[in-house]
């Protein structure tokens, strides 16, 4: 099926097809197209009784936004979720491996006790082992957050390189640089659930305002002893930063004039 696709003459199309196997897309030369990456802002924090995980929703391929509503917070088990940043392919596959390994481990060791739940530390350790042992191949920064009966609310940061550290809160991704100062300044131990969700949402909004690779909606996942719940905050609900332009509402079915 492939043989008819590469033209015989010496055009840009034929050169590109021969070299890369794909046609030049979107008016951009293939060498400019980067691997799909979640240039991103992710974070997680402990509050009094649980954890809140937050992320933006932009997946970029170079300057093109491949997905403006992506979900970077993935469920590993009912009570443990993972925030993903870095290469989209790497993190999706690491997460799939971790889910599988956790289920196997629990089948053998926990039996019928709390099906669908896992120790947060187990998930974090499995992720860390995968990240460390494949550190030369992977470009994946992850944050594991969850609640279990053994140690309660926990957040583990697993950045590039495969180290693991339990922390009260952490930020990750390209947009995180812009909010280190703000998070250090406003963090408090033992916030309530509403305070923690508001804090995380505000931090992600500030990062989206300054980082070109972060954008879209703010997604939050809250995990506590009774379960987990997801939220999406659309851009117009995020509080504006200085000199930020407001979102122009669109008339349904009409043309914005």
């Amino acid at each position, binding site marked *: 099926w492939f043989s008819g696709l590469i033209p015989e003459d010496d055009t840009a199309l034929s050169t590109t097809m021969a070299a890369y196997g794909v046609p030049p897309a979107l008016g951009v030369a293939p060498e400019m197209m980067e691997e799909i990456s979640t240039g991103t802002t992710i974070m997680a924090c402990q509050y009094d009784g649980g954890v809140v995980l937050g992320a933006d929703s932009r997946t970029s391929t170079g300057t093109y936004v491949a997905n403006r509503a992506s979900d970077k917070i993935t469920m590993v088990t009912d009570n443990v979720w993972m925030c993903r940043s870095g290469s989209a392919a790497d993190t999706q596959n690491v997460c799939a491996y971790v889910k599988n390994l956790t289920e196997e481990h629990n089948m053998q060791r926990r039996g019928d006790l709390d099906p669908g739940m896992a120790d947060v530390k187990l998930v974090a350790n499995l992720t860390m082992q995968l990240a460390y042992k494949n550190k030369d191949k992977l470009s994946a920064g992850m944050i594991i957050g969850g609640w279990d009966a053994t140690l309660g609310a926990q957040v583990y940061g697993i950045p590039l390189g495969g180290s693991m550290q339990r922390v009260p809160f952490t930020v990750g991704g390209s947009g995180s640089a812009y909010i*280190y*100062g*703000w998070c*250090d*300044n406003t963090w408090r131990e033992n916030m309530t659930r509403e305070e923690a969700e508001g804090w995380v949402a505000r931090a992600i909004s500030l990062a989206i305002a*300054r980082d070109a690779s972060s954008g879209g909606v703010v997604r939050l996942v809250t995990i506590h002893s009774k379960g987990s719940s997801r939220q999406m905050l659309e851009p117009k609900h995020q509080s504006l930063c200085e000199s930020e332009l407001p979102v122009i509402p669109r008339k349904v079915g009409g043309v914005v004039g």
Partner: protein
Amino acid sequence: YHVEQIGMERDSPLDVKTVARISNQINYQNKSANHGAGLGAYMIIGGWDSNNGSQVFSCTAGGNMIATKWTTDGSGSTYIWGFMDNGFKENMTREECEEFVTAAITLAMSTDSSSGGCVRLNTVNADGIHRKLVKPDELVPVYGELATTTRHGHVGSSGGMML
């Protein structure tokens, strides 16, 4: 040098915008210096003049100059864009503004390895330039930082050796 020359010709202190423009033109006209990397002299010009009051100009990479209400620059600035976006308010008092700037620089010093030491503030208003030094032990401690050590007994007289 240029500011003094033009100041002599004009017989009055220069506008903030003029000083910023001089700095900006030096950057822009020497874009080819350092094998195309430019001069690398990125400055924030801030001041007060009788024509336009208080102004801030950021003269950034490539010879760009914009009038802004506030700005930050340097390696440590990436960590405080979010903090300053959140905390900047119009029409702050002098004390509020000095506290805001000191807090921002303290946070940046804590995260950036290339920033540290003390905080020097220059407040410019109609009365002139007021310089202030904030030493490390006077700074508000940042989350996760170790406390600065307090020395007991006589500082300096025994060269630090205590029994």
